């Protein structure tokens, strides 16, 4: 049995490992070339998840940590689909998100930023896509925050997004940015991405149609994972 191979990852589209303007990458980037190889069963398979793995409210960041009331901030829905490069929805895959609160502070024991924690906001959520690859979260819009890169570097508002995919070689972590944020073109982490079209692809668009009147705005964010070749003819990889 031959499984359809994944498209090779376009390493000229993806950020390189060594990006000196993002200083932390300097010592954490391999200097030697990656060893490129056809995926085997070890990479074409990957973990699977079901609704038994997660709770029914895990994708509602307004509620999943709230103690005494609603979190502070601009209420939003983030919705979209996980697709592959063929434009097909990736069904039943785990999507996890994490973010700062409305003041730009993370609920993490190592975040020392002076903005306060919100007692009603944890900052993480997770869900499994439906049969068409669709997902949704409800949350507050995260704040921008400063970080140590240059003296006064600021991250644009962003939500971290982790997608499991069908195979281990599709595994992806990225960040979702918000339409119109003037910090996007000033961010050294965004600038690790060589192609401006790839930055646009990470910028969620305001979607008035999916907002809730007198309640919240909505942003649409689709995520694309590696596609797979059609099996017109069987391949004969090396050593065969």
């Amino acid at each position, binding site marked *: *049995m031959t499984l359809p191979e994944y*498209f090779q*990852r*376009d*390493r000229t589209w*993806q*950020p390189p490992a060594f*990006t000196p303007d993002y200083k*932390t*990458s300097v010592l*954490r*980037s*391999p200097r030697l070339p*990656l*060893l*490129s*190889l056809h*995926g*085997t*069963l*070890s*990479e*074409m*398979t990957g*973990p*699977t998840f079901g609704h038994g*793995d997660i*709770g029914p409210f*895990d994708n509602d960041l307004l509620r999943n*940590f709230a103690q005494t009331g609603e979190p502070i901030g601009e209420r939003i829905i983030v919705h979209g689909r996980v*697709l*592959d*490069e063929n*434009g097909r929805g990736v069904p039943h895959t785990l999507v*996890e998100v*994490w973010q700062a609160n409305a003041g730009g502070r993370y*609920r*993490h*024991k*190592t*975040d020392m930023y002076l903005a306060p924690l919100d007692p009603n906001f*944890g900052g*993480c959520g*997770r869900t499994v896509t439906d049969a068409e690859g669709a997902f949704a979260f409800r949350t507050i819009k995260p704040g921008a925050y400063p970080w140590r890169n240059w003296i006064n570097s600021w991250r644009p508002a962003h939500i*971290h997004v982790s997608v499991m995919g069908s*195979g281990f070689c599709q*595994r*992806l*972590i*990225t*960040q979702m940015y918000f339409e119109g944020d003037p910090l996007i073109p000033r961010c050294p*982490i965004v600038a690790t991405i060589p192609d401006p079209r*790839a930055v646009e*692809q990470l910028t969620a668009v305001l979607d008035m149609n999916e907002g809730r009147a007198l309640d919240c705005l909505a942003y649409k964010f689709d*995520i*694309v*994972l590696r596609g797979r070749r059609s099996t017109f003819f069987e391949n*004969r*990889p*090396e050593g065969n």
Partner: protein
Amino acid sequence: MQRLDHMKESASQTAGPYVHIGLAPSRAGFDVYAQELGLDITGPEAPGERIRVEGMVFDGTGTSIRDVLIETWQADAAGIHPHPEDPRAAQVAPGFRGWGRVVPDFATGLWSFDTIKPGVVAGWGGRPQAPHISFWLVARGINIGLQTRLYFADEAEANAADPVLNLVEQVHRRATLIAAREEREGLPVYRFDIRLQGDGETVFLDV
């Protein structure tokens, strides 16, 4: 001329220093989920040799990286993955998940996980691959997740024939993928240090 209608893969962005909030919130210092994922790779019943794997991840100065997050993926002791595309998936060991999330001690950078030693998995053209565990690393400063493999030092014969290890042109670099074995109070413990850069840089894969 017609146009191809392929989409482009979303660009990766670093997982950042607070990756634990999303993927391992109890390690960030708070509880939110009824169960955290990736803590139990094997379940209690899966047959096979129970082992521990431990190590550290080092940056280009030799400093341990304490904010790394590692995911592991492996077959069961019979070489079967719990995944619909594994032709033998129906026979996978009961309760076996094959996937783990590993976070180091924030003070030292030492990480460890317990699993079972995986079996042989078919590779290209059905050629056997030596037992291995796939690793995927993310952290602040890593722009796109780094993939590598752990092989087992006590599988010297299988490792010598492994088609992936044999693709590493500089023969001495193959050793960067092979974990040393010791016994600790009866438990086999494999040591697997990962060097992102510099002397002894680990072989990373683009698969």
